[in-house]
């Protein structure tokens, strides 16, 4: 029985790591290249309000988080497109409001006080089958969406004004992209945690961008980097009993430092080669 439990736990962890990596690769590359890192932080924290509301109403907190995440992502994209408000201020307000709403509702919920820490810092132990299925679905949707509309999405992200000369659907694509990204982020909350998720979205893409500037390669390689980072994080947190999300972040930052070191080594050896050839 114990073996079976361990087996399903390993399988669950692996699947969780795989789906989280796919979302980190696809959504992360989009977020980093469009400079939406702060916006993603806002979405994650705003969705905490949905978690609190979910508890209060007695529904699945992830459903509440998904609604809040989707709403805040689209809302922030709308505000920045209209240019009616300073984007960073809007994000800051939504960020704090989401956290406040979440904490108030959890405080108001009678009886059992949910394990807040697991939402803030993430834990693979709390991931349900439903979460895994939802993560699997969003991963597939993201892959198909990116594959089918690859060029259009790339060019809208790069230069929206120019893209308007060849497609009338720039705004539609922007909202769908941001909406899917928001959902992907929220569905990773149970595993990676509200506070840590931003690392999953930014560090792998930044590691890969040290070595290549090709968009497709960044997507693929940051998925691979995420998978190794998350898996290593799981293993280490399992044996050391440390919070999963925090361990993953520490591992990814370590990867990033090593990658930076490797790049400067490559650069200096290239310069040496150049010197030799010119002599």
């Amino acid at each position, binding site marked *: 029985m114990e073996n079976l439990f361990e087996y399903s736990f390993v399988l669950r962890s692996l699947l969780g790591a795989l789906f989280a990596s796919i979302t980190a690769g696809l959504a992360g*590359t989009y977020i980093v*290249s469009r*400079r939406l890192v702060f916006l993603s932080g806002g979405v994650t924290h705003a969705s905490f309000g949905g978690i609190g509301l979910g508890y209060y109403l007695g529904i699945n907190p992830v459903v509440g988080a998904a609604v809040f995440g989707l709403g805040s992502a689209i809302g922030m994209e709308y505000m920045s497109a209209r240019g009616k408000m300073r984007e960073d201020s809007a994000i800051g307000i939504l960020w704090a409001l989401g956290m406040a709403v979440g904490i108030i509702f959890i405080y108001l919920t009678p009886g059992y006080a949910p394990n807040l820490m697991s939402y803030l810092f993430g834990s693979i132990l709390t991931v349900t089958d439903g979460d895994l299925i939802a993560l699997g679905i969003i991963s597939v949707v993201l892959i198909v969406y990116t594959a*089918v*509309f690859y*060029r*259009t999405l*790339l*060019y809208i*992200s*790069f*230069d929206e*004004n*120019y*893209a*308007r*000369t*060849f*497609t009338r*659907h720039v705004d539609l*694509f922007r909202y769908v992209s941001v909406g899917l990204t928001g959902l992907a982020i929220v569905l990773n909350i149970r595993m990676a945690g509200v506070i840590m998720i931003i690392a999953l979205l930014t560090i792998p893409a930044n590691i890969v*961008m040290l070595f*290549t*500037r*090709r*968009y497709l390669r*960044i997507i693929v390689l940051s998925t691979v980097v995420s998978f190794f980072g998350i898996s290593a994080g799981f293993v280490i947190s399992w044996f050391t009993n440390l919070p999963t999300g925090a361990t993953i972040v520490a591992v990814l930052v370590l990867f990033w430092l090593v990658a930076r070191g490797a790049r400067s080594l490559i650069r200096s050896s290239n310069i040496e080669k150049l010197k030799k050839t010119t002599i």
Partner: protein
Amino acid sequence: MSILFTIDSVTAGYEEKVVLHDVSMAVEENDFIGIIGPNGGGKTTLLKVILGLLKPLSGRIDYSPGDLRLNQIGYMPQVAQGDTLFPVTVEDVVLSGMMHDRGAMGRMGRTEKKRAAEVMDELGLRPLAHQALNELSGGQLQRVYLARAVSGSPRLLLLDEPATFVDASFEADFYEKLKLLNNRMTIMMVSHDVGTISAWVKSFACVSGKVFYHPHSKITDEDLRMYGCPIQLVTHGDVPHVVLHKHD
């Protein structure tokens, strides 16, 4: 010369303010028009109306005289704010100029890559095909955006201040390239630098709420005064130009 398209009594602008008032003009095939005028006079707005990006409040653009289609217009927007840190290669940017007939699910195959290679060859960008934009100089970047505008083999090329952020030494080379392109396409180019471009363009259009077409490349203060075109003329010593005075 035959007419490529006409602007018929176009009034256009934005929510807050009308910028172009009842503008009419006929654009001839293979013309090279320098679009000049004061800031806020409607130069960019005019390009956007021609591109179909901005619907006129009244009047219309008639593309039928030269049987021009919207996907035969190449466009080089003001590039100062382009995000050069975005992870995209020179080849990818040039390929995006061919998205016009491809639809949202457009794929870039061998034919498109071959065409992109031709354009990059023509503009001296071939060795940079796989470089990222942040590795390029200002002059190279400018040629990348020009390559994007012409890779779809347009019949009409619209340029919005293409030389603003480029070293003066690159300018002559850039205009030389435009002159070659003008052999196979009509060009309309917004510029502040009347003195420099008068050596390259065939005619001027002064845009200041209204549009006045001036069918020669020589333009004087009197012309500008007559058109009500309050602009400051800039001259450079190393480029052939007419003697121009500062407008008072």
